[in-house]
Structures are given as C-alpha cells and as structure tokens.
C-alpha cells in the first residue's frame, strides 16, 4: 500500500504504470506538503505491469527429425577348425604365515635376524631364570580392603506398599541402576500397581530416596533388563505376562512398546527378559521373554507401539531330551515353566533354561523341531531343548554363563545349592550348599574368572573366589538386618567394582567391592580352565 512515499522517488517500472500511480495517488485532499492531522487513507492499488513478460509471450515452432535409414546386412560364419584342451587347478600350497611383504627383501632381513638373535635369546633365557620380579606387585588403583555399601536406594511409596525389589539392572553406560518392584511371595493374581525406578549414580546430588526416573506400572514387575546400547531403554516383564519397553528419558510418556494382551502373550508371570541382537542386523535388538507357561518368546518392536512376535519356543515335557532320568513320567502335554534364562557369551545361539521342575536344559535358537503345544500362536513355536542336565532339588531361579569359559555355567535353586555345570556333561562339576534357605540369584563376575556372587534367602550377599576356597564364601555381606531375603543382584560391567543387590525390604544397595574382587591376577583364565578340567574327570 503506497503511503507518503508518493512524494519521494518512485522507480519507474513502466511509463504507463507510473502515470497511473501518480494520478491515482493524489486523491488525498491534504496533499503531502503539509503534515495534516493523522487520517487513515486508502490509496489505490499500485500495480506495476511487467515489461518483459508482455514481450516474451509463448513462441512455438515445430521441428522434426529422423534418423537416417539403418543399413543391415546378413552374413554367416562357421568354425572349421577346433581343438580340445583341459584345465584343472593345482592343489593350493599350504599358507603358513600371514605375510604382506614379499621375500624379495631377503638379504637385509637375514642380516638383521642374525644380528639380533643372540641378544634376544639371551634375554629370553635370563627372563625365565630370573627371580627379579618374584613377589613384585604394582598397585595402580587405590586399594579397597573391604566390601562397603556405597548407596542405599529406595522408593518410599513402593516400600510403603510392602513391595519387594524383584530385579535390578545396570544400564549400558554403567551409571544408572534400575530396579523393578513387585512381590515374589504372592501365589495368586494381584492387581496392585507397582513401579520401575532408576537412579543415576553419577549425578551430583543423588537422593537415595528419590529416583531420577519412576514409571508406574499396572501390575507387578518381575524382571528388568536395560538395552545393551541405548542408555535409556529398559524392558520389563510383568506378573500378568506382558512385556513392556520403556524409555526413561521421556518422563511424560515413557512407554515405548508393549505386547498387549493378545493370543501371543504369556499367560503366566514373565520371570526373565533379555535383549538379544537380531540375526541379520546386529545393531538392532529384540526382546526375549521367558515365563512360567513354558514359552520363550522373541519380540521385535513394531508399528504402533506394539511388540510383534518374531520367533518362539515352547517347552513340553514329552519333548525334553531323555538323557537324564526325570522324576515324573509325562502325561499329556504338560508345559514346563521356565524361570531363568542365560545366554552363552561365546556362542550367541546357545542358551540355558532353568525350569520350575528344577532341571536345566541346553537349548539352541536354531532348533527346528516343532513344539507340541495347544496354545495358539501367530508364529510356529519350536522345541529348543537339546540336552538335559541333572536336576536341582527345587525350582531354579537363576542361571549364569561364564564370560571366560565357553562351557561353564552356574545355577542356583531353592534347595540352597549352587551347581557348577559344564555344557558337556549332565551331572554338575561341583555343587556348593550356601544356605539352608532359598537362593535367588547367582552371577559370575565380569572381571575375575573365578569369582561369583550369590544372593541368599537369609539376607546376605555371598562372594565366592574359587581360587581361595571352594567350600565357603570368601566374603559374606549382610544386606538386610532382619534376615529378609535378597532377591536379585547384578555386577556393573563398566565400573567393575560395583555390585547392586535388591532385597525384600524394597531397598537396593550398591556395594563397592574390595580390590581382591576387581583385579584380575596373572593366570586366572588358565586356572579356570584347569579347574574345569580337573573337576570334570
């Protein structure tokens, strides 16, 4: 809209247009000379016609082109002379060394080796005969003589409801510890609300009674697992059989995925969830859930916040391998409830299942046999079991595969015993009676091959060092004063001196281990191999 700029310079966009502008604009009675009282004026629309567009217009010409005619000729050919020959590859020469430089550099190399050999031989000889370093140990880190409790964390509303800590998990960076609340001594269906809490231990101003993230869950949470690469994603299995995945970095709506209540979901409490890398994309992960209805299911995050079943296994008593005598003869298609899962660190498709009946099964993700089950499922369920180990006296609550030896794993059951098994034989290599009450969790240490920790029903966390003594615990720390059980424990793989344990009082205690449990000695892996070998014979 043109205002008092009429008086100023107007760039003539077109002669005709400028005149129209000038004539139309002088409609104001006062004129631009005097600054009259402020009035609203509407002036005409100033339009500037285009100069070039009128000139150009649309021009069209028609042209056509055509290729020259294609010349073709026909000719025929025929072979009149031929010869036979055979070709065969020679047997490959055995490659003995990874050499990236040809041997044409010979003479200098030979001279170098001849010059250097006596010196190196002398040093090697001196070394194995020397006592110079006997008993010489260097301490790089500050020595911690005893196991101390660093933090005592709890969530008061959950504790007020009398909830127990059913599972703890560390996240991938090792700075956040999450715990799941629920009840482990309820036999019947319950509708109590429960919580999943997470504390960030590296944050300054950590409040032990105020978690950094709290998620309300409609049913008791039985197990928890943080995502292996995403620091804020956590999967949990509920008492109702659902599996949920939360994103703790979104406090207003943490729920990412859920299984919902479809035909595929578990019908019994989910006792363990794990994250597994997908077969084809090893950067993406899927959730494995094991529940008391005998199914082990693999879920993938799908559209609409739903977890989609991608593969599944079902256990039936008839399909268990018969290499060990089981107590009851099977009748009908009885399901075998699974209570614990552990994957081997060396073979990603091999896993061990602990069951309610007390026996352990060696299973494989690649098993192809179909499962005998009447439960409907969108994905065909397979029978995974390949080998049965000797049973415990009661349900097995925890299995842990050694991160240092491909065949060893531990299992803990309600008979108060920890069994050390080898994948190769059915009876256990060693069995240790730790307590007269139940044992709820056992875990290998991620840094020392011979150390494991167990959570007992008498309220203490026991640490075993198989190098020192294989009969009694090296250290036993009391977590609860009134002997209420400790239900779960986890080592922190990033900050290897931390161990988190949750108990029936609803508190999670973070223990800092003494240096003897965190620093690996020189020959421990060999000692572990030796232990496995000598106990097996």
């Amino acid at each position, binding site marked *: 809209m043109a205002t008092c700029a009429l008086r100023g310079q107007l760039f003539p966009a077109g002669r005709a247009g400028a005149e129209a502008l000038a004539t139309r604009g002088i409609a104001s009675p006062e004129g631009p000379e005097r600054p009259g009282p402020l009035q609203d004026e509407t002036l005409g629309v100033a339009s500037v016609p285009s100069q070039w567009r009128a000139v150009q217009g649309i021009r069209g010409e028609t042209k056509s082109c055509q290729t020259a005619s294609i010349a073709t000729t026909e000719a025929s050919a025929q072979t009149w002379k031929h010869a036979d020959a055979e070709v065969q590859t020679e047997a490959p020469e055995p490659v*003995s*060394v*990874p*050499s*990236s*430089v040809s*041997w044409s*550099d*010979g003479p*200098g*190399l*030979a001279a*170098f*080796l*001849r*010059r*250097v*050999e006596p*010196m*190196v*031989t002398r*040093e*090697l*000889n001196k*070394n*194995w*005969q020397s006592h110079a*370093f006997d008993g010489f140990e260097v301490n790089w880190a500050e020595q911690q003589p005893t196991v101390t409790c660093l933090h005592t964390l709890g969530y008061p509303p959950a504790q007020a409801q009398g909830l127990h800590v059913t599972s703890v998990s560390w996240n991938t960076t090792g700075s956040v510890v999450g715990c799941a609340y629920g009840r482990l001594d309820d036999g019947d269906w319950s509708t109590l609300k429960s919580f999943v809490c997470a504390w960030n231990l590296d944050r300054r101003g950590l409040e032990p009674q105020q978690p950094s993230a709290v998620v309300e869950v409609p049913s008791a949470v039985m197990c928890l697992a943080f995502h292996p690469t995403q620091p804020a994603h956590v999967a949990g299995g509920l008492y109702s059989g659902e599996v949920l995945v939360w994103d703790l970095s979104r406090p207003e709506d943490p729920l990412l995925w859920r299984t919902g209540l479809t035909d595929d979901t578990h019908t019994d409490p989910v006792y363990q969830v794990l994250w597994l890398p997908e077969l084809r994309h090893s950067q993406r992960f899927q959730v494995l859930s094991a529940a008391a209805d005998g199914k082990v299911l693999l879920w993938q995050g799908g559209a609409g916040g739903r977890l989609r079943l991608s593969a599944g296994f079902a256990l039936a008593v008839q399909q268990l391998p018969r290499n060990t005598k089981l107590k009851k003869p099977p009748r009908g298609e009885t399901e075998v409830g699974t209570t614990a899962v552990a994957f081997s660190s060396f073979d990603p498709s091999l896993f061990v299942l602990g069951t309610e009946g007390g026996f352990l099964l060696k299973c494989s993700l690649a098993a192809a046999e179909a499962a005998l089950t009447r439960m409907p499922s969108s994905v065909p369920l397979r029978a995974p079991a390949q080998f049965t180990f000797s049973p415990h006296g009661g349900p097995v609550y925890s299995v842990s595969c050694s991160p240092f030896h491909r065949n060893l794993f531990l299992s803990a059951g309600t008979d108060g015993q920890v069994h050390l098994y080898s994948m190769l034989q059915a009876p256990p290599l060693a069995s240790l009676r730790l307590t007269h009450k139940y044992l709820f969790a056992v875990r290998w240490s991620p840094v020392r091959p011979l150390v494991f920790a167990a959570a007992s029903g008498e309220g203490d966390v026991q640490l075993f060092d198989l190098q020192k003594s294989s009969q009694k615990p090296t250290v036993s720390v009391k977590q609860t004063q009134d002997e209420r059980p400790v239900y779960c424990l986890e080592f922190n793989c990033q900050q290897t001196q931390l161990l988190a344990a949750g108990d029936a009082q609803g508190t999670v205690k973070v223990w800092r281990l003494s240096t003897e449990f965190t620093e*690996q*000695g*020189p*020959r421990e892996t060999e000692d572990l191999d030796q232990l496995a070998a000598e106990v097996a014979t």
Partner: protein
Amino acid sequence: MVQPCEWSPAMESTGLHFNPGPTAYLYLLCDCRQAASPLRVSVASLAGIPIKSTMDNPTTTQYANLMHSFILKARSTVREIDPQNDLTFLRIRSKKNEIMVAPDKDYFLIVIQNPTE
C-alpha cells in the same frame, strides 16, 4: 630339570624357524622401512607392516600398530637425553606377560613371553 629354550632363526627360502622352549612365547617381525619404496607409502607402512607372526591376524596388527609408536617414542627419549646414545633393546613387563623388542633401522622383532611364576 629346566632346559634352556632353543631359539635359532634359520633363513631358508620359505622363512624363519623358531623352536619353542619351556616358556611359551610368540613373536612378531615388523618391517618399518618407510621411504624405501614410494609405492608403499600408506598408513599401514607408517605403522610397521608385520612380516611374520605366530599370532592371529587381528592381534598381530594390533601389536604392530601399538608397538611402533611406542618404540619410536622410546628411541627419541633415549636420544634426547644423550644424542650419542641409542636404543638397543626394549622390555615391557606387565602382570601377565613380558614384551621384548629388538629394534633396528628397518625391522623390529617383537617377542612376547609368559614369565614363569
């Protein structure tokens, strides 16, 4: 009765032969010539190319890369303290094993030995 470990490289047309003794060890022979042939100038040649090794490929390349800069640093340290001096032998002792390096203008020989306890 402990026997001295025999270790004698015999240069034949196919390569070196080392006889292992009572202490377990591994060795790695590196070529560290850099300006000798301009065709071979690459990141790998600046780090020391392994010629022969008793370890698997990933461990070999890891040792070659890490030890090369360490050896050059050690050599420059010795020469800086006394320019007439030079590095003849390098030993790194750790909790689990001992790494011994015999350096030269063109080649390194790295031997890793498990000390007997």
